[in-house]
């Protein structure tokens, strides 16, 4: 699997933001999505980014994933290629579940036997062993999202830069699922996080989800997105009310 924390004597932060800003458009109609964001994720850390709509959570994730570039500031990436899980599973409908997991390995030129083994291993990690030859439309929503997670993990492990900490980016991955499935998958994610030791940057608008999953919760304001406050929720699982109050305050400041 990926390099675990204990294997890394020197703990590099997989990602560090230096005064990152992102503006869409120019002139009068320009929208400032992010402004002066400083943020650091430590190796193996689980960080939840929390915010209402329009706070630039997704923009922030896209910047780390390399799908977009910041207009100002700098993002320091010390991880292997970040794995990304989107809100929709976005599986390739022409490939089987295993084929989807193998896709990033195939694009990286990994030999067939090795890809097979890796895909089987990752499908087992997300508890889908034996379902590798199912097509996406034959799977439930929760199963698809788990395939997407396995595929994302495959995309980090192909690159030769082992030794660098790994980083998993998740953009509201469970928000389109029903409550029961979401609950189970949150538990699964924690298990996988512990098993792989990867750092996770998890975007959500659900306070309970953020507190349950994260070690640290970062609240972003909306338009422009700035870091408002951070909570260390590892030892304070009852922080939900406090964070909720802070989130409401941020949202109501837009009422005027």
């Amino acid at each position: 699997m990926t390099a675990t924390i204990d294997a890394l004597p020197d703990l590099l932060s997989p990602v560090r933001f230096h005064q990152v800003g992102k503006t869409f458009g120019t002139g009068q109609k320009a929208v400032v999505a992010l402004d002066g964001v400083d943020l650091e994720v430590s190796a193996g850390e689980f960080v939840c980014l929390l915010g209402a709509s329009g706070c630039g959570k997704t923009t922030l994730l896209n910047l780390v994933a390399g799908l977009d570039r910041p207009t100002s500031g700098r993002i320091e990436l010390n991880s292997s290629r970040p794995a990304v899980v989107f809100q929709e599973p976005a599986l390739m409908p022409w490939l089987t579940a295993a084929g989807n997991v193998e896709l990033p390995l195939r694009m990286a030129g990994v030999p067939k036997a090795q890809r097979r083994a890796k895909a089987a291993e990752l499908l087992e990690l997300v508890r889908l062993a034996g379902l590798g030859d199912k097509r996406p439309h034959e799977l439930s929503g929760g199963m698809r999202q788990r395939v997407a997670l396995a595929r994302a993990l495959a995309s980090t492990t192909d690159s030769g830069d082992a030794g660098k900490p790994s980083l998993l980016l998740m953009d509201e991955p469970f928000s389109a699922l029903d409550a029961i499935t979401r609950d189970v998958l949150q538990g699964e994610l924690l298990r996988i996080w512990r098993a792989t030791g990867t750092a996770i940057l998890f975007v959500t608008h659900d306070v309970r989800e953020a507190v349950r999953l994260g070690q640290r919760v970062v609240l972003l304001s909306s338009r422009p997105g700035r870091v408002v406050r951070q909570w260390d929720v590892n030892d304070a699982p009852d922080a939900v009310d406090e964070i909720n109050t802070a989130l409401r305050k941020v949202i109501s400041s837009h009422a005027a």
Partner: protein
Amino acid sequence: MPLEVQEEGSVEAGLDALDTPIHTSEGSRLRQIAARVLPPVGAIVILVAIWQALWAAAFWPEFKLPAPAAVWSQIWQLVTSGDIGGLFWVSVHRAVIGFAISLLIAVPLGLAIANITVVRRGIGPLVSGLQSLPSVAWVPAAILWFGLNDRAIYWVVLLGAVPSIANGLVSGLDQVPPILPRVGKALGAGRFGGIRYILLPAALPGFLGGLKQGWAFSWRSLMAAELIATSPELGEGLGQYLHNGMSLSDISMVFAGIVLIFVVGVGIELLVFRPLESSVLRARGLTSSAR
């Protein structure tokens, strides 16, 4: 702890079992085939019955509306004399070669139109326009340029099929959900990896639609070209057979020609394109089983 983990796993397994979409197959294989074959056969039987009735009522003189039996005997004569093989060979091999060349031209063309903005703006409307121009219109020019030979015929077929195939590919590429190339990029796809592993397979259903239409256009254009450009050096295809029927004022021969052209066109669609399309769509869960 191990107990809790196991329990969580079993909850998940239970959820998976409950949530997995259920796919039922409808009845036996024989029934499925019957349900597919009977309606078109029934339609043909009704059509022939009406034709027979009209002929029997003698609304039109015999030289305008032949008896179904007379047309059948024309076709049967072609079959027994073995001439039908030659007719089919001449026309079908031309159509297949023309279609293959069209494919070689249309795929790079479609890729360029879909991916390069300047090319799309410049050539895109031209290609769409060519699609609505009947390719028969090119027959006179082709004969003047190339003379009465196969090259003239291929030229007409190309102009019929290339725009359809290219347009099919373009619309297939345009309909790829934007999330897929983004996911591809996040998974490490470069420019060519993205085209090869994401865009082209994602565009396949639309592209197949274009291929099907391209085949119809190339068959249609070929028949028009054969019908107009007749000469001994060209050999006798179905179009020339039809033309001969007209020259001989033999209406049953004309009808036989039409029936044969129809049979080949529909046959290739049913034998080649329909199975291809339905297997692609089924693999992606895009069909209802009733189609």
